[in-house]
């Protein structure tokens, strides 16, 4: 057992949830997602995000559209699909339960 590994596992557990949360607010460009996740200190390097986005898109949780950009080539804007919203609702519930469980045990 080592604590760094354990922490990384915990972070990984909530990473996909956090990505869905960020996208649920507003359809966003990959840089927006990165900035929010970095701000919240959920990811350390940006490269982590891209495989997860592609995986979630392939699982039907996300979709994207191309939007023209004034600063360069068109950009991908991600948004949640209906399936993604259901998935996120499940995770919301599960997160609340987890927090409750930990709280309960900590109290004792």
């Amino acid at each position, binding site marked *: 057992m080592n604590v760094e590994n354990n922490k990384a596992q915990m972070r*990984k557990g909530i990473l996909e949830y956090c990505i869905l949360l960020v996208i649920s607010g507003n359809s966003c460009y990959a840089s927006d997602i990165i900035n929010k996740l970095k701000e919240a200190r959920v990811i350390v*390097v940006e490269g982590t995000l891209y*495989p997860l986005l592609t995986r979630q898109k392939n699982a039907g949780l996300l979709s994207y559209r191309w939007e023209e950009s004034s600063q360069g080539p068109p950009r991908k804007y991600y948004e949640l699909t209906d399936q993604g919203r259901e998935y996120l609702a499940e995770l919301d519930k599960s997160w609340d339960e987890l927090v409750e469980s930990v709280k309960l045990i900590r109290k004792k």
Partner: protein
Amino acid sequence: MVLNFLYIFADDTTLFKKVLYEKKMKITVSINIGGMAFHIDEDAYTELKIYLRNLDRYFAKEPGSAEIMADIEARIADLLKARINDYKQVVTIQDVREVINTLGTPEDISDDSGSGHERLGSIGYHRMYRDPDNRIIAGVCSGMAAYWRIDPWIVRVIFIIISLPGGLGILIYVILWIVLPEAKTTAQKIEMKGEPVNIHNIKDSVKQEFDNVKEKMNL
């Protein structure tokens, strides 16, 4: 990333005189990343190319790896674009290193996503080249020796022995001379030795090369 063409970039703007005085003249290459064109120093290009190749290999097992790489290239283009302007038109090795730090090496990404599986070292290709640095004739024997990690003289002696009766060795040598490419770039020289291609040994090699050039030019 697509390499378009190669040319000498001689910058003589007064604004850059001081920088140039220290940096002298460098070769830049023109590349296309995520649909945007950049001028990039040759050493920076080598580092970026190796980085992209390692990432590509890391994501190869993922479904949709081409898409992941395209997204990452688009992000690299964004980050590089933020580092150039009218007064600094060329992407330097420093810029590339900062971008790599931001995006993360395969090792960083593996750690970050907490995927318990083994840390993936960036395994370099191992290819046979002609070694121009240790050559006697065309670097065929030294290249083979570098590939097998043995002393070049072992290969040379074998060639001499099989050349003695009917000159068969000479024929083989000439064929290999034609077939084997010369290890010209830093990345190729590392591939020739089969060392894992990573930033550390690129740095070592590049530094070695700079020192060689310096010596030659008496700087």
